[in-house]
């Protein structure tokens, strides 16, 4: 690479006068820098993502250095683009400053919840949203959105709303002063709590919050009949249901008329500063400035019976049973412990037999009153001694509880109600604190585990660590996703991204073939589902319906249900709950997602960049565009020649020659293939233009995806290249750098081929596509396999493929470049055809046959 730069610099006349235009060698040098950094950023992002699988041990130092590396690189990208296109994309600096400031704030440990919308409907709450909407809202929304369980209709009033309320009324400083004087012993905790609560109760809601509340209420009303809307208003504080339990310290209000929402909201917020809450925070050292009270606003359920389920009996934590308490009417008396309800001890596995039943006399039931509020109503004598739950209801509640526990990977404390229609509604789910003294200890486990038969070990790669027990569900081509039973261990031939659709339901996933950096692995990590891919023959070693235990920590599969291991996992602190893991996931939100895809969209602007990946993508696209714009459409530098290559295949490729890559006398405009002297370019074209590389069997695709993956980068009538994708090759005698945008996927090839074996290299990168992620990843897998067969060192992360080869003799290098040419032609629409995982292997075979016949 250095040598090329030298050649290019030699092109520069030493006495060249300074002009406003950047000389081409400088331009191209920066362009190459951009490509190199661009690749490095993408690879770093991919490897950081892999760290979230629970398989790696990483520390804070790693997170800090990685963030530093990526931000430094992205800043360099922006500066390089500035050199290429001076003052043209200055807004990128603003986006960069904004994003890196967010990352810094995350690293400094700020609470995440100061920004964003003030209200969020449960349906709109995404995964991992606890920091925005509080633990209670977040888990309830996940239960509804990913497990299809019924929860009350409702919305969250977010942490951002809380902070806006404080800001609007200048409460932050006032509260700080009161807390400080309490901590100095100047006022009692009663006085401090009373003063702060009064300030909140007297506060004025920000105008936007008022509007958002009434809009959200109107949306709730839309779903209902004309009946007056009655609500349950509950606390959903940040950290409330997490590592530390603030359970029961805050206020909840039941059966609140919609008109009184604002008042109830303030009351719940004020309860964040009750005496007990203040003292508890002091005791555990929870910083006052991090207090954030989000609120849950739910349609009131008119309950016939209600109760609480502990999915693991806290007193007898040997793992066999769950504990269920219930009563007639609303559950508050049982939840708060003010009254005892019926108690059932239920087995933790199907068919959820009731082991023990303790019925009490229930003289009253807490009931909703028509106009709002609740009251204890006397019950008729026959109901008093009748069990508040029937056998079928108990089974349904137990099954629901296990589903939720499996999903959150922790024993759960679940509040539920049975409504007038007999429907089970989950009101709340939070992790249950259990006494760990009864749980097995790691050293004892070693002994215990040695008694279980091992079906196989150390086969395959761990995509997500964890432990699960369950029955094998063998997924074949004929299987339908909706038939996969909840809690099953899914065993499949391929790590097909399709399986992601049942991720929330299954206990674990094992596959014969697949990569720990593939799409399925990413989703397994998202949902923390234990997942081992690439086992080779799990589908042969296991039987349908077989009961097994998957230890995706130690990479062992045991025969039978090793409940001790599961219980151990349930009581251990999950890695995902560690500060470091949460921090990494949080900083990645500002780094990894790619939102800018289509340069033809109006939104493809510097200001729209919301992650470092977006900036990287933007800079890359614009760099290619500038190079073509400046040297093809506006020919500046007399030392370079350029033109559009005339080919017999539909691909518009602009060539820019920097040193002996084109025959002398080539004119600006069109280049004929025989004018090309660039050694690597010729080899690439030989593969690319081979008729068979373009002559795949006819395909049946819908017109939409066909049109969008057309390879021609549009006619010259669309004069400005700004509106279309760019195909560009910068060449010299021994060097070629090709940027292709075919359809919506991006291919980059960079290669240098000489007689000196040590200088030779080729780099290939492939990213994106027009179809869904499933098919894109299949194509990525195809490309990866083919290139690995031709001696490339290959890394596949989702639909990003990076392949490298170096230090190979000239003949070998040229052969590999031909393969790359073939591959680009062959794969241009392959994602459209990748209808099933079998296709991957079909096309690998087909490609290999072509290679054997032609190269």
């Amino acid at each position, binding site marked *: 690479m250095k040598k090329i730069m030298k050649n290019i610099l030699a092109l520069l006349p030493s006495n060249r006068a300074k002009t406003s235009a950047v000389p081409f060698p400088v331009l191209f040098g920066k362009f190459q820098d951009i490509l190199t950094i661009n690749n490095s950023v993408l690879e770093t992002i991919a490897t950081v993502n892999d*760290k979230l699988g629970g*398989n*790696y*041990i*990483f*520390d*804070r*130092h*790693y997170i800090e*250095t990685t963030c530093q590396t990526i931000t430094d690189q992205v800043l360099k990208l922006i500066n390089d683009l500035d050199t290429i296109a001076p003052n043209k994309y200055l807004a990128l600096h603003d986006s960069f400053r904004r994003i890196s400031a967010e990352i810094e704030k995350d690293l400094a440990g700020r609470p995440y919840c100061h920004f964003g919308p003030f209200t969020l409907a449960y349906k709109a709450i995404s995964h991992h949203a606890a920091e925005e909407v509080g633990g209670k809202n977040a888990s309830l929304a996940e239960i509804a959105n990913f497990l299809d369980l019924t929860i009350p209709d409702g919305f969250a009033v977010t942490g951002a709303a809380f902070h806006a309320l404080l800001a609007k009324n200048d409460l932050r400083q006032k509260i700080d002063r009161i807390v400080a004087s309490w901590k100095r012993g100047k006022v009692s905790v009663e006085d401090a709590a009373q003063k702060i609560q009064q300030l909140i109760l007297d506060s004025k809601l920000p105008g936007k919050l008022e509007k958002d509340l009434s809009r959200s209420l109107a949306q709730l009303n839309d779903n209902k009949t004309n009946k007056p809307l009655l609500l349950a208003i509950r606390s959903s504080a940040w950290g409330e249901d997490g590592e530390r339990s603030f359970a029961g310290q805050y206020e909840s209000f039941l059966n609140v008329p919609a008109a009184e929402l604002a008042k109830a909201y303030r009351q719940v917020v004020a309860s964040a500063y009750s005496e007990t809450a203040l003292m508890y925070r002091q005791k555990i050292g929870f910083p006052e400035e991090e207090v954030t009270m989000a609120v849950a606003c739910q349609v009131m359920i008119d309950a016939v019976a209600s109760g609480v389920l502990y999915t693991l009996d806290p007193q007898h934590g040997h793992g066999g049973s769950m504990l269920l308490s219930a009563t007639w009417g609303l559950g508050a008396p049982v939840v708060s412990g003010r009254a005892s309800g019926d108690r059932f001890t239920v087995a933790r596995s199907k068919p959820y037999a009731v082991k023990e039943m303790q019925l009490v006399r229930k003289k009253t039931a807490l009931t909703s009153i028509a106009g709002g509020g609740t009251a204890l109503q006397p019950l008729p004598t026959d109901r008093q001694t009748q069990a508040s739950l029937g056998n079928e209801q108990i089974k349904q509640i137990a099954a629901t509880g296990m589903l939720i526990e499996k999903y959150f990977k922790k024993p759960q404390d679940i509040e539920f109600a049975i409504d007038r229609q007999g429907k089970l509604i989950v009101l709340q789910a939070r992790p249950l604190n259990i006494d760990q003294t009864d749980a097995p*200890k*790691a*050293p004892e*486990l*070693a*002994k215990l*585990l*040695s008694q279980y038969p091992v079906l196989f070990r150390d086969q395959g790669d*761990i995509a997500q*660590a964890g432990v699960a027990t369950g029955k094998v569900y063998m997924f074949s081509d004929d299987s339908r996703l909706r038939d996969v039973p909840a809690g099953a261990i899914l065993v499949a031939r391929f790590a097909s991204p399709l399986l992601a659709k049942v991720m929330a339901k299954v206990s674990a996933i094992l596959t014969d073939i697949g990569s720990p950096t593939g799409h399925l692995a990413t989703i397994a990590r998202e949902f923390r589902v234990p997942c081992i891919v690439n086992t080779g023959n799990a589908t042969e070693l296991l039987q349908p319906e077989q009961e097994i235990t998957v230890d995706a*920590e*130690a*990479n062992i599969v045991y025969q039978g249900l090793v409940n001790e291991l599961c219980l*151990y996992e349930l009581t*251990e*602190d999950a*890695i995902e709950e*560690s*500060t*470091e893991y949460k921090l990494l996931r949080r900083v990645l939100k500002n780094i990894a997602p790619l939102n800018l895809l289509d340069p033809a969209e109006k939104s493809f602007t510097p200001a729209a960049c919301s992650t470092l990946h977006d900036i990287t993508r933007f800079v890359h696209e614009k760099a290619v565009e500038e190079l073509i714009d400046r040297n093809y459409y506006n020919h500046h530098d007399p030392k370079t020649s350029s033109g559009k290559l005339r080919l017999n295949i539909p691909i518009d490729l602009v060539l820019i020659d920097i040193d002996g890559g084109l025959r002398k006398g080539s004119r600006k405009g069109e280049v004929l293939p025989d004018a090309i002297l660039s050694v690597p370019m010729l080899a690439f074209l030989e593969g690319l233009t081979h008729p068979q590389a373009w002559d795949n069997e006819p395909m049946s695709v819908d017109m939409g995806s066909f049109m969008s993956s057309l390879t021609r980068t549009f006619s010259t009538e669309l004069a400005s290249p700004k509106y279309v994708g760019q195909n560009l090759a910068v060449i010299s005698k021994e060097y070629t750098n090709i940027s292709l945008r075919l359809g919506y996927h991006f291919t980059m090839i960079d290669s240098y081929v000489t007689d000196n074996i040590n200088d030779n290299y080729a780099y290939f990168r492939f990213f994106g596509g027009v179809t869904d992620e499933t098919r894109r990843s299949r194509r990525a897998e195809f490309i990866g396999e083919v290139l690995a067969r031709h001696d490339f060192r290959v890394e596949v992360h989702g639909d990003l493929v990076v392949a490298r080869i170096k230090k190979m003799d000239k003949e070998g290098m040229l052969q590999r470049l031909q393969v790359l040419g073939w591959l680009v032609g062959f794969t241009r629409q392959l994602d459209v055809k990748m209808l099933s995982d079998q296709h991957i292997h079909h096309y690998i075979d087909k490609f290999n046959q072509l290679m054997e016949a032609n190269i």
Partner: protein
Amino acid sequence: MSDQHKTSILILDDEPIVSKRLKPSLEKQGYEVETFTVSSEALKRTKERSFDIVITDLKMEGLNGMDFFTEVKATSPRTEVIVITGFATMETAKESFQKGVFDFLAKPFKISEITAVINKAELKIKQS
């Protein structure tokens, strides 16, 4: 596996997450594990009893990892040392090996990677 034959491991890293992750995983595999985040305390412990294997970070407040394991090796030459560090350079690796460490792992690493190294160290201990 009786306690007498358990391989004993000391882990020293100033970031608690490292021990928190490693300890249960190694105990589950039947190792006896003690963990420390402060090097002087770890050193004190190694004076009280010897360990088969010591896993240590390099860059730490107070006594650094290099000095720590040098002292450990001086008092208990049979102890095998595995270095884990987030500041892996050729120089530190070279220096560590010169001072007799068994292996050198750059953080972050996979649990299976460190387990493999521990297994190799165990084998060496058994052979000697």
